[in-house]
């Protein structure tokens, strides 16, 4: 028994200091890892939402009955000073995901109404 008590070991101060350093390290790196995870999840969510919105705009473009939210004119500048204006409507697709990220895609669909041949 005496031989065990005579053995040198860590003091309480050493243990406390070690635990303090360990705690600081754990908290610091855990927060970094958690932050990285959160950022990665937000990036994934943004990518998924973007793909979803792109698919939705494709679906609207394929549908002949897709509603246009507004009308406007696109201005086309050709060489030689020729400038034309063509009317059309904007089709919007917008989704806000659970990360509160809003992705909006706008497409301008020109009114393609060729004049009838005589």
């Amino acid at each position: 028994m005496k031989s065990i008590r005579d053995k040198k070991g860590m003091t309480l101060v050493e243990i406390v200091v070690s635990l303090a350093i360990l705690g600081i390290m754990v908290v610091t790196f855990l927060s970094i890892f958690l932050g990285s995870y959160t950022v990665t999840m937000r990036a994934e969510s943004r990518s998924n939402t973007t793909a979803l919105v792109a698919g939705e705009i494709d679906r609207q473009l394929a549908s002949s009955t897709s509603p246009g939210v507004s009308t406007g004119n696109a201005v086309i500048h050709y060489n030689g000073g020729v400038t034309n204006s063509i009317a059309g409507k904007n089709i919007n697709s917008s989704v806000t995901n659970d990360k509160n990220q809003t992705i909006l895609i706008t497409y301008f669909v020109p009114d393609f109404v060729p004049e009838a041949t005589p």
Partner: protein
Amino acid sequence: MLSRYIINKKGMALALVLMIFAVVSIIAATGLTIALSQTKQSVSNQKYVEAYYFARSATDVVSADLINNIIKLNNMQPDVNSTTEEALTFEAFKADVDKMLTTSIVTVDGIVPGNSVQSNVIVTNMDGQKLVAVSTTYVKDGRSSTAKVQLGMISPQAITVSGAKSAIYSWGDINIGNNLTVVGDANIAYGGTTAQIKDKDLEAEHSVRDVDFVIPPVFSGLKNKNTLYSSNQNTVVSINNTFNGNYGIVEGDYFNWNVNTGLGDVILIFNQLTINKDSTINVTGGNNLYIYIVEDPDKTPDSITPLFDAKNNFSVISTSGVPKTYMISYTKSMQDIYNSIGEISAPSSSLAPLDTTNIKNSAELDVFFYLPGCNFTIEQGNPTMKGSIFAGKFTIGNSANVSYQSYEANSILSLFNTSTSQTKIIETFVFSDSSANIKRLWVK
């Protein structure tokens, strides 16, 4: 032994802690860098997708404007000898259109109201039928994105067909057996030299019609050696899309093939389409199924001869009862003819159909056929057909049953008539089989 010696040294604990700290720091920094990189990538992807659709919009705008103005110019056509104000206006407008068509870079503003989006469309190929453009869009509302998009736009061919109400029209001779039934406001017409119709209640109208191909059809991208494999109960779902491949349906008999046009037109382009016996294509949805049989535009020695061959008892059935399928074929021989002289008026000795479309026995076809270069043959049996048939030459056996609906027949003409032309954007194709495998076959 050495490591034990080192670890037992005084002060080693601090060194060990620092080493562990350094390793964990490197891991953390790496993870953080990857996370931030992914974030930047997702944001960049979002901007790219937004700019991509702006670029596509700009290409749509330019093509619509060009086509509108070309049509407007064609409609004016005053007397060239006139010195009136109208003629001067025409010349000025023609000069403007010439400038448009020779412009290499077109700038488009105002695609998105309230935002500053500018697109430069570089017209790389404008031959009247096909516009391939590269559009670069700059988004100026604090973001800076550039997207390039290359679109192949196939405008319909300018075909002028006078008189639309024909259930059956042959640019060449026509030969029809007994018991042909034609239902609806329709007639049978031909442009050849002989018409033989055994059924006394029917007679063919000799009606010579011009076939004016201003530009031969151009289909790009038929280089893939894809086979549209079809086993039973496969489903094609499409959003304004295209499948292009060298072979069509080749696998198995007695299959049911489903085409759902609920989300948009389905466009299938083949060099060859072979359909085995007792097979059915069920067409559902409110849009149309277009099946093109075309030649390989590269015309290599290995190119596959265009062929549509439907075996016995093949059926194309629209669930709505109204034909929603258009089968359109430009054969190799026809393309060669059009390329050489540009315009044909039937009947013509050069309009010799060399390729045959065979429909055999008990076919039930809710299909509009537009096959100006084909010898269209319905062999013996009891086929039932809805929709119009336009072909280069007809041979129809006994007991054919043709149900004709004029308003739908007009729509197939509109597909080829510039006055009511449609622009088909060949873009993407999604093929979904019964196991829900998705294949994207057309590359943007």
